[in-house]
């Protein structure tokens, strides 16, 4: 990729007209591979302790690869502040989770004679915290992101976000998922409308109807196959109830409805096609969602535009997961072999089956190999996800991102530093799933 020099980028000045400013993507896959591998290895060796450093360094790399209008983004997060934030979160959450879980278990034993209610309740109890943590994590990341020397920022409002997220999830669930795009739009709007670049506030325009069409593509196959198998199951159950006809002298099957017969024929086809359709529809929805939501964001006079392509994204997922799956299977094979040997070794010895070479190894060695392969699997999986999914995805998204009417944005003034001592500690502890 041709990356113009900083001087050229600066001297060419900012386009005053409405000519869109392209975004470049710098960085090579091989470098990312080694960085992710090194960081992942250190994280495994330190039993997860190094992950704060890993996250920081990978983010620095990814951020600097994005170059809107030729100037790289910068990630200024500090691993030590992440560690500190995590420790703070642990102190608070440990009490909540430890004591609350125990009390719930007690109530569940006393009132419901089982532990299911407790697991359910403690899961439900963490959900608001989960949304809260997600917003806080976003606030931290934006506060540590800079472009052209100017900070991004997100206004405080994590509890507001949690309440809205709960409400939108509730609406989505009671409408059987129809309102999913509405939830996606309003939650994104809540965040975007509180986001700043320097002194300039961002705005989310558009409406949730813009996401409805791609969502129907996801929603219909789920609903249709749910309906089909529901009817099939019900009719099948009815038929089983009247099973006596088989025992009669002259068996005549009872009348079945035409709908049922059609569904019986369609069921295998639906069972095969529905998952593929669903996966493609999900990719399509996500591509369209990013397109719509990003292209309807503006900051003052400037606005964004992004045009990721469905087939390109599908291809990245397909080849990326195929390759990672292959490598994963190769790593998994020795683990399974060793696991079987470790558990069977007692029985084998008893039966006098002392053949081969692997089972003559002492058990601790086998166990060590199995544990090492187990971690190797996670390590390689995360490295391959970085190199073969996230990297090509980011490159594709970045290269299709343009800023329209950059003019005023280029002169925007700085915003004060958001200290935010807790960093993304809560998200980290609750495993909110912000992978990078």
């Amino acid at each position, binding site marked *: 990729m041709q990356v113009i020099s900083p001087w050229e980028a600066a001297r060419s000045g*900012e386009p005053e007209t409405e000519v869109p400013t392209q975004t470049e993507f710098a960085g090579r896959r091989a470098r990312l591979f080694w960085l992710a591998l090194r960081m992942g290895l250190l994280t495994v060796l330190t039993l*997860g302790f190094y992950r704060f450093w890993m996250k920081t360094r990978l983010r620095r790399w990814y951020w600097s690869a994005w170059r809107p209008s030729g100037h790289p983004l910068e990630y200024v997060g500090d691993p030590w502040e992440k560690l500190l934030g995590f420790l703070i979160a642990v102190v608070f959450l440990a009490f909540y989770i430890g004591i609350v879980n125990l009390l719930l278990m007690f109530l569940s034993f006393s009132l419901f004679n089982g532990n299911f209610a407790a697991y359910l309740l403690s899961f439900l109890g963490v959900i608001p915290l989960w949304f809260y943590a997600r917003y806080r994590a976003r606030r931290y990341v934006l506060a540590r992101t800079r472009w052209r020397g100017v900070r991004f920022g997100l206004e405080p409002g994590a509890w507001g976000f949690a309440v809205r997220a709960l409400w939108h999830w509730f609406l989505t669930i009671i409408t059987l998922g129809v309102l999913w795009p509405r939830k996606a739009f309003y939650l994104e709007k809540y965040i975007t409308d509180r986001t700043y670049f320097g002194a300039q506030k961002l705005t989310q325009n558009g409406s949730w109807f813009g996401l409805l069409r791609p969502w129907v593509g996801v929603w219909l196959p789920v609903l249709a196959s749910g309906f089909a198998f529901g009817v099939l199951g019900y009719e099948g159950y009815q038929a089983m109830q009247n099973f006596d006809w088989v025992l009669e002298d002259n068996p005549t099957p009872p009348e079945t409805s035409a709908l049922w017969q059609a569904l019986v024929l369609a069921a295998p086809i639906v069972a095969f096609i529905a998952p593929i359709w669903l996966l493609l529809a999900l990719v399509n929805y996500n591509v369209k969602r990013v397109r719509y939501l990003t292209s309807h964001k503006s900051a003052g006079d400037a606005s964004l535009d992004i045009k990721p392509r469905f087939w390109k994204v599908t291809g990245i997922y397909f080849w990326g997961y195929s390759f990672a799956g292959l490598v994963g299977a190769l790593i998994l094979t020795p683990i399974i072999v060793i696991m079987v040997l470790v558990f069977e070794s007692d029985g084998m010895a008893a039966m006098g089956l002392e053949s081969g070479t692997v089972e003559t190894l002492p058990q601790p060695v086998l166990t060590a190999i199995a544990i090492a392969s187990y971690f190797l699997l996670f390590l390689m999986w995360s490295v391959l996800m970085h190199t073969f999914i996230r990297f090509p995805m980011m490159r594709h998204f970045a290269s299709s991102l343009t800023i329209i009417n950059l003019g005023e944005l280029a002169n925007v003034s700085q915003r004060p530093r958001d200290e935010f001592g807790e960093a993304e500690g809560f998200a980290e502890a609750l495993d909110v799933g912000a992978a990078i």
Partner: protein
Amino acid sequence: MSDQTTIRVGERPAALGALGTYFDGESAVAHPARIRIEEGQQALVIEFAGRHVLWSLEDVRWLPDQADRSELVLANAHDPVARLITDEMRLAKRCPNLTRRNTHVRRSKVLAWAFGAVASVALIIFVLVPILADQLAEFIPPEGEKALGEATLSQIRTVLDETGIGELPICENQDGLAALDMMRGRLEAHAELPIEMTVHVLDHPMVNAFALPGGHIILFDGLIKAAETPEEVAAVFAHEMGHVESRDPTRHAMRSAGSIGVLGLLLGDFAGGALVLFLTERLIEAQYSQAAEHEADNFAMVTMEAASIAPGALGDMFHRLADQYGESEGVHSHFQTHPTLTERIALSRAWQMDAEARGFAAQPIMSNQEWVQLRAICQ
């Protein structure tokens, strides 16, 4: 661009001139800048838009992990926001402290919170959760506990069933049950249990026995087959009664509910952490339960002696098991939920000797024929 750059690198470089972009950190304006080194002041001079700033060479830092390796992104140690971007890579050679990091996070603060986090997790897992679990276990209504035990038993039977469809059968040979009842009556008469026991034998070759919440005691057929005398079965039976007496299974269930969640927090989103979580939980659980097993052993000794059953039977049983299956000691034994067999054998034999000194005389539990019937309980 290169035609505007004049660089001389020699013994005493006279001047280094390069081009770049300067961001002053006050606004987003990208200033095209000329950069040179002022040898007299050992400083970087950045000229832009008719102004200039001076960065002492000692204060110049670079941003690591940049995706684009054909340019330098530089910062000033005393200015958190200003940035200079240049593709003149040779500049790096002139800045002595380029890779030095400065973090605004005080290590002492991190250390203090780390101590706080470790202390609070330890406090919760080792003090608060066990105390609360022990206290709350007292308040669980007996019916609730009983139902919980039944639900768990049903789960265990489903898991152990080899056909994969039904539940592992409970052995119901009438003569066998009568013999088991005799043993139970003998032990029960000499112990005061807080709740009524429910005793089952499961048709499975595993050499094991366990207690579940609500007074359930489960013996496996394999255990009865492995025993050589009724006294050995009675010893295991009495041990499980010890768990019922101290409500260990209920406390155990409540404790792990509290501590697993807390441990999960510590590992966060570390991939592969599930294994570490499992092992840590196992380690903590083992420490608790080794103590509980010890108490159950003591309970068994006291009850057996009172019921005129030789306390040494537990040791005889374990001695044979140790010969057959080996003993685990060392690192491995910390993960074991039970004390090592050697310890338990020693305890049982010592108790036998003390009891004999106190004038203990054993009375048989059942006749030979009844013992044959007990061994055939699953037929």
